[in-house]
């Protein structure tokens, strides 16, 4: 089915009419407006705050500082708590100390945002400067300034993987590569920045909080715990979400703050993040240094790996903690056989905005390291880089394959996909052509990177084992309404990826209904199924979809039993076809789903023991992760007027069964765009004193339409054995291999050129311009 033949996504039909409803579009009577005063200092004692003048301004309704918040609220929760992890009692407003530029210092609520901003300008804060540290490397040093006085150093947590005799393997290796690969800090930058609206909710004697989030249930837990309220008094609604990319996967202090203010004032209070502040107030991602050594034998077979993933966690352990470093550590072997390895993953605090999730979550960082190292090894061995991958990738016959860090590669045809991609790209021809161009003076080259993506986040036992404090399951409820159409209640939260359309489609398929007969309801803790983890980790269609299939199959089972009763037939002889149940031998003996739904709700004549109604739910906990994989190939040229011109990209991948190919395509190409930004120019830099250098979209370059090269996609569908629909996730695939593929192509283009250029840091702009 080509993308254009698919039924349109209902959300798209609304969005093109401008009828989306994002948090900032929600207006309530008597609504007040909040502004947050943030620290201009990277590290300082909060010596005094004078709010008198601001508080006396007309239109100012509330002014809150950290002292009040520290007394009135509990600390923000930590969602990922690794064994041995250090703690910090982080509140939604700083008290005693500020640890990064942008840390909230005071909340002002007023009749208009403008009044609140003006009042903020009249708050006087005395800061006692402390020495700041901004890089993870510096923060690790014994003499580094400390962020938390009760910690022995700046390390938040660490994890290790040790398998086999790594030292012996390196000793006997024919080729060894050593490298330090840096992925700089970047912004997720959903086009809709964050926004929170909290309002008293008299009916539940509590609160309703609208927030632009990927995880409504986690926000509910956080707000309830911080305000010391029971969870049933808090309702969280995630309306339309204008992009998220991990930035909106954690809970934020602003959610607590608005809830606090709404309760105190007994009025709705709204905060809309300004793009300027978002550069220091929303969690950025990456900022990891991967130190990697690979040992190969003379045939190019990988013998061992030594790796260290160092994450700059920013100023607070916060939210997902060092999860991206941990994930990177676990994913370092990728799709390769690695007999022995020694890996350490750790995160350290620095005086910068706390880092969090961003699409890829540790995987692009380690992929950049491993795939760069493979190319380096191939160059030294003088073999085709594709061939070196071929020799080390896990074979189809070995699946499911337990990789050395414990990750199970569930299914896949790695070699077949690699060969297909090389053929479609014309790899050999392109290598020859660019080599000719190079001898003619044009610096062009080709590069590739193989990747695996851990998707369908879950198994709850795995989450529990590594300290993730939320279950990895997903719940779905399928309710056939009396009129015969279906409402699906999911715990998944669409943020543009279209998961609601995939769910609608799966439900329509299971129940043989037209897709118009299915409505998917999401993003409201009052009506939707409880899901701990929600949307993130590329699990929407995989895990959420599996839960849906489970619930829909229960509905189907009940439909068959009910029809058997009404048709006086044996359920085993009945089939669900085209929206009705009929006898396999006599299609005229048939009851439509509408008839059956009416019978179920009238309940006048039900089979003995059957419950009235037609409403089923299922909690699905994935038995394992689904490992998607693929390879990106690209061709670049280095031009005098631009750093890198990417001529074309071919992206070949396998994410199991594709429920909606159009969504898969959108996810991949959107991911490639962010991968291109990562590879070439997106970065958030700090001055040595902790002052951020990028606080405006004018200074943060993201790709626009003209910056994207022609992209060709190649799909393979190898169903995962662990999910009823065979689907794996694809949300992060696009972004993972692009930095390495582009860097490898640039290295190829540079092979006869200036060897002094540093290409082991992304974005490449840093090394290519010469100097920092």
């Amino acid at each position: 089915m080509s993308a254009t033949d698919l039924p349109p996504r209902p959300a798209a039909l609304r969005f093109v009419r401008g009828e989306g409803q994002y948090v900032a579009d929600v207006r309530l009577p008597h609504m007040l407006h909040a502004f947050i005063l943030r620290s201009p200092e990277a590290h300082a004692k909060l010596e005094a705050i004078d709010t008198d003048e601001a508080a006396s301004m007309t239109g100012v309704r509330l002014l809150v500082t950290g002292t009040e918040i520290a007394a009135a609220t509990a600390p923000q929760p930590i969602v990922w708590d690794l064994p041995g992890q250090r703690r910090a009692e982080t509140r939604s407003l700083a008290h005693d100390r500020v640890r990064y530029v942008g840390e909230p210092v005071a909340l002002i609520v007023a009749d208009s945002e403008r009044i609140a901003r003006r009042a903020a300008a009249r708050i006087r804060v005395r800061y006692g400067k402390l020495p700041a540290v901004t890089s993870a490397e510096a923060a690790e040093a014994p003499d580094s300034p400390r962020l938390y006085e009760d910690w022995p150093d700046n390390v938040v947590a660490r994890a290790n993987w040790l398998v086999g005799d790594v030292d012996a393997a390196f000793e006997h290796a024919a080729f060894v590569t050593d490298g330090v690969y840096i992925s700089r800090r970047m912004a997720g930058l959903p086009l809709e920045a964050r926004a929170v609206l909290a309002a008293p909710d008299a009916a539940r004697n509590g609160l309703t909080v609208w927030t632009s989030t990927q995880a409504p249930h986690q926000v509910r837990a956080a707000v309830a715990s911080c305000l010391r309220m029971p969870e049933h008094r808090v309702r969280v609604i995630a309306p339309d979400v204008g992009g998220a990319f991990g930035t909106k996967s954690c809970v934020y202090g602003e959610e607590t703050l608005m809830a606090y203010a709404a309760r105190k004032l007994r009025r709705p209070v709204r905060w809309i993040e300004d793009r300027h502040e978002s550069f220091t107030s929303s969690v950025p991602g990456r900022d990891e240094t991967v130190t990697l050594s690979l040992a190969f034998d003379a045939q190019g077979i990988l013998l061992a790996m030594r790796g260290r993933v160092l994450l700059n966690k920013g100023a607070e352990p916060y939210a997902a903690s060092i999860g991206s470093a941990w994930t990177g550590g676990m994913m370092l072997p990728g799709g390769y056989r690695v007999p022995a390895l020694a890996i350490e993953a750790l995160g350290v605090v620095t005086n910068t905005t706390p880092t969090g999730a961003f699409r890829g979550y540790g995987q692009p960082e380690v992929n950049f390291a491993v795939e760069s190292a493979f190319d380096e090894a191939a160059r030294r061995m003088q073999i085709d880089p594709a061939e070196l991958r071929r020799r080390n990738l896990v074979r189809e016959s070995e699946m499911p394959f337990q990789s050395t860090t414990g990750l199970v590669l569930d299914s896949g045809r790695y070699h077949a996909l690699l060969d297909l991609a090389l053929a479609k790209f014309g790899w050999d021809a392109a290598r020859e052509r660019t080599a000719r161009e190079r001898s003619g003076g044009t610096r062009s080259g080709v590069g590739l990177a193989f990747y695996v993506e851990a998707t369908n986040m879950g198994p709850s036992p795995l989450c529990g084992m590594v300290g993730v404090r939320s279950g990895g399951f997903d719940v779905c409820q399928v309710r056939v309404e009396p009129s015969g159409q279906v409402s699906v209640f999911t715990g998944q939260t669409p943020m543009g990826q279209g998961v609601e359309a995939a769910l609608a489609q799966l439900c329509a398929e299971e129940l043989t209904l037209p897709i118009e007969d299915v409505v998917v309801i999401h993003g409201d803790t009052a009506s939707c199924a409880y899901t701990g983890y929600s949307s993130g980790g590329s699990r929407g269609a995989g895990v959420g979809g599996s839960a849906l299939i489970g619930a829909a199959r229960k509905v189907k089972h009940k439909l068959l039993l009910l029809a058997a009763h009404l048709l006086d037939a044996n359920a085993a002889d009945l089939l669900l076809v085209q929206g009705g149940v009929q006898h396999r031998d006599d299609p005229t003996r048939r009851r439509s789903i509408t008839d059956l739904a009416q019978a179920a709700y009238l309940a006048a004549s039900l089979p003995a023991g059957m419950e009235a109604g037609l409403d089923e739910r299922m909690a699905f906990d994935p038995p394992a992760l689904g490992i998607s994989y693929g390879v990106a190939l690209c061709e670049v040229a280095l031009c005098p007027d631009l750093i890198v011109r990417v001529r074309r990209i071919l992206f070949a991948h396998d994410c199991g069964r594709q429920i909606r190919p159009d969504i898969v395509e959108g996810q991949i190409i959107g991911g490639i765009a962010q991968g291109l930004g990562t590879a070439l120019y997106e970065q958030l830099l700090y001055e040595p004193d902790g002052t951020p250098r990028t606080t405006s979209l004018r200074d943060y370059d993201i790709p626009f339409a003209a910056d994207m090269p022609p992209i060709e996609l190649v799909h393979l569908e190898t169903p995962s054995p662990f999910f009823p629909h065979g689907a794996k996730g694809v949300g992060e695939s696009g972004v993972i291999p692009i930095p390495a593929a582009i860097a490898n192509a640039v290295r190829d283009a540079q092979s006869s050129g200036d060897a002094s250029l540093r290409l082991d840091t992304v974005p490449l702009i840093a090394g290519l311009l010469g100097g920092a």
Partner: protein
Amino acid sequence: MRVTLVLNGDARTLDVDTTERLCDTLRERLDLTATHVGCSEGVCGACTILLDDTPARACLALTVQCDGARVETLEGLTPADALSPAQQAFVQHGAVQCGFCTPGFLAVIEGLRRQGDAASWDEATLRRELSTVACRCTGYDGIVRAARAVLQPTP
């Protein structure tokens, strides 16, 4: 301050604050929330509307500056109970994910359509002209396809 705008075809006289931006008047005063605000500094283009037929940033204009001007928002470009050809093309070509950038692109494309010289543009020119609005979700391929379908229809 009292201003008069010809808003989506209707003359509207409003009292606004001096520092009120056009996007604030539209969204907060008139509840026309199709105009999105993504950066407040002119870069992202989510707030793009048509000001006297020309795409302009609603976050960079004070409403008082627009006194007497014709302002068109996506609400005005949307037929009552159908989709415009551009809207249809967006749905059909996978140009919409989260929808936050969509109103900006539709305004820009409508501006280019009225300007009328897009028919002969090559891919690079079309992409350059569309590079006035940012999309963080789609990677642009769907948007470019949809724009081509509208601006360069094959008979």
